[in-house]
C-alpha cells in the first residue's frame, strides 16, 4: 500500500501537473485579476447605470439601445472612420516607400534610419506637444513660413475643418518608423536572386517591384493593415493632449467620446457599452481583413 502511494506521489511530481501550475501561478493570478475579471465585469457594467462612485443599478440593454439613438456617438464613429481611412493607407504606403529607399547600402544609411525610427520612441504626449507648437496658429513656424510664401495663416488644430487632418499628420509622423522597421525586416528576407531574375527577364524596376517584391511582402502588409487599423480605432492620447475633442467636437473620436462619458460625465455603464461595441467592431474588422488577406496573400513556405 505505502509503496503504491509513494509511486503515486512520485508520478504526480514526475509529471508536470504540479510544476506546470507552480510555473504559471503568478501569471494566472495577475492575468486573472487584471485581464479576465475586468472583461467579465465590464460586460456586467455595460448593462448597468454606473457612476463609478456608487454601485451600479441594472438597466438591461438600455445603454446599448441608447447608443443607436445618440447622434454624438454616431458622429464620433464617423470621425473615427474618416481618420482610419486616411491614417492607415498613408502610413502603410509611406512606410513602404521609405523602407524601399532605406533598403540599400549607402554612406550615412544609419543616420537616415535613426531619423526615421526616433519618433517611435518619443512619447505620444511629447509628440502631441511638439506639433501643437509647430502648428500654433499665432506663433507656430508653419504659419510663419506660409505667410512668407504669401499664404494666409491657418487655424490648424483650432479650425474645425482642419483639426482631424492635422491629427492624421501627427500620428503618421509618430507611427511611420514602426511600419518602416517591419517592412525593412521583410524586405531583407527577400532573396536578391528573385529580383535579379526579374530584371534579367526584362522587367523594369517598377514592374519588378509590383510583380515580385510587393506580393512577397503580402503577409507583412496584411499584418500592418490589421495592426494599424486596431491602433487607429483606439486613437486617444494625441486628441486628449492637443484638442480635447474640439474645436466644436470635430476631433471627438469614439474612444475620446467614451472616455468623456466615463470620467467627465460619470456614465461608466454607457461608456463601457461603447467600449464593448468598439471591441466587437475591431474583432469583426480584423476577421474580415484576415479573410480578404488570405485570398490575396500568398505565404511562402
Amino acid at each position, binding site marked *: 500500500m505505502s509503496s503504491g502511494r509513494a509511486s503515486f506521489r512520485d508520478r504526480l511530481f514526475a509529471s508536470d*501537473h*504540479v*510544476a*506546470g501550475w507552480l*510555473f*504559471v501561478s*503568478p*501569471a*494566472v493570478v*495577475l*492575468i486573472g485579476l*487584471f*485581464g479576465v*475579471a*475586468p*472583461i467579465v465585469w*465590464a460586460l456586467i*457594467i455595460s448593462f448597468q447605470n454606473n457612476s463609478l462612485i456608487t454601485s451600479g443599478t441594472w438597466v438591461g440593454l438600455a445603454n446599448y439601445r441608447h447608443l443607436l439613438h445618440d447622434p454624438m456617438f454616431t458622429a464620433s464613429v464617423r470621425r473615427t472612420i474618416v481618420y482610419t481611412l486616411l491614417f492607415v493607407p498613408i502610413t502603410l504606403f509611406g512606410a513602404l516607400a521609405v523602407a524601399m*529607399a532605406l533598403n*540599400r*547600402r*549607402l*554612406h*550615412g*544609411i*544609419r543616420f537616415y*534610419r535613426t*531619423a526615421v*525610427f526616433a519618433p*517611435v*520612441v518619443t*512619447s*505620444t*504626449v*511629447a509628440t502631441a506637444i*511638439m506639433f501643437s*507648437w*509647430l502648428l500654433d496658429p499665432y*506663433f507656430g*513656424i508653419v504659419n510663419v513660413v506660409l505667410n512668407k510664401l504669401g499664404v494666409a495663416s491657418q487655424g490648424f488644430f483650432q479650425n474645425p475643418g482642419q483639426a482631424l487632418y492635422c491629427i492624421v499628420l501627427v500620428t503618421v*509622423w509618430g507611427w511611420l518608423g514602426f511600419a518602416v*522597421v*517591419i517592412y525593412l*525586416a521583410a524586405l*531583407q*528576407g527577400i532573396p536578391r536572386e528573385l529580383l535579379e531574375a526579374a530584371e534579367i527577364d526584362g522587367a523594369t524596376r517598377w514592374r519588378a517591384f509590383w510583380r515580385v517584391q510587393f506580393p512577397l511582402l503580402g503577409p507583412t502588409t496584411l499584418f500592418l493593415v490589421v*495592426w494599424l487599423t486596431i491602433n487607429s480605432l*483606439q486613437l*486617444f492620447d494625441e486628441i*486628449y*493632449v492637443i484638442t480635447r475633442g474640439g474645436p466644436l467636437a470635430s476631433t471627438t473620436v469614439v474612444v475620446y467620446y467614451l*472616455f468623456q462619458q*466615463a470620467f467627465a460625465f460619470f456614465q*461608466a455603464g454607457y*461608456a*463601457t457599452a461603447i*467600449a*464593448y461595441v*468598439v*471591441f466587437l467592431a475591431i474583432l469583426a474588422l480584423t476577421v474580415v481583413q484576415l479573410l480578404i488577406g488570405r485570398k490575396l496573400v500568398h505565404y511562402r513556405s
Partner: protein
Amino acid sequence: MSEAAIRPEDLTTARRWTPSPWHLVLIPLALVMLFPFFWLVVTSLQTLTQSRTFGLHFALQFHNYVDAWTQAPFGRWLANTTIVSVTVVISNLVFCSLAGYALARMRFFGSGALFLVILATLMVPFQVVMVPTLLIVRGLGLVDTLPALMAPNLVTPFGVFLLRQFFKTMPVEIEEAARIDGAGRLGTLVKVVIPSMRAPLATVGIMTLLWTWNDFLWPLIAIQSEKNFTLQLGLMTFQGAHTINWPLVMAGTVTTQIPMLVIFIVAQRWFVQSLATQGLKG
C-alpha cells in the same frame, strides 16, 4: 525572415562617400522626420519674446530648463516613472518566462484552455477594461499610488504569448540532456534555456519598457496627486499650466524625452530587432 532590420554588413561597408541619387531623396526625408525635434530644442533655448518673432535665435540661454525644473517636480516624476517601469519590466521577464516555458514545454491539467484564455485577453483593448480595472485597483486600496500603475501590467499576455512561441521553436535536445543529468524543471529553465533566449527576452523587456514608460491613458485615470505623476502625465499638466509660454514647455518636453532617446540611440540595434520581432510573431 527573423533577422533584424539592420544587417551587420550594412554597418561596416560604404566607408567612402560614394555619390548616389538616393541621397537626394533621403536627406529631405531625414530633415522632415527630424525637424520637430530640431525646432523643439531651438525653441527651448529661446526667450518668450524670441519665440514669437520669426528668425533663428540661437540664444543658448538655459533659463527655461532651470525654470521648468524649479516650477515642476520633473526629478520626482522621472524617479516615479523609473521605479514603475523597472519593476514592471523585471516582473514581466521573470513571470512571463515561467509561464511561457510551462505553456510551451509542460503538459499539465488545463494548459490548453489556459493558453486560449491568455490569447483572448491579448485581443481585448484597454478601453474595454479600464473602468473595471479602476474599480479593482480602488478595491485593493491602490488608487493614486505607484503600485496602481504597476499592478495591471506586472504580467502581460503579450509577454507570455511571445515567449511561449519562442520556447516552442527551441530544440528540445539540450533540455533533455540537462534533465537526464538530474536538473529539475526550474534548474533547466534558469541554467539552460534562459541563456539561449537573450533576443526574445530583450524584445519583451524593451517593448514592456517602451509601453510602460510612455503610457498615458492608465496613469491619467489612476493617478490624481502631482507627487505620483509619471513623466508623461506630468508633462501634459505642465503644458496645460503654461500654454502660452512655449519655450518653457519645450524645455520640459526635452527633459522628459532625453532618457528614452538616449537608451534608444545606445541600444538602437536591439530596439529595431524587438520591433521587427513583434511584427513577425505578433
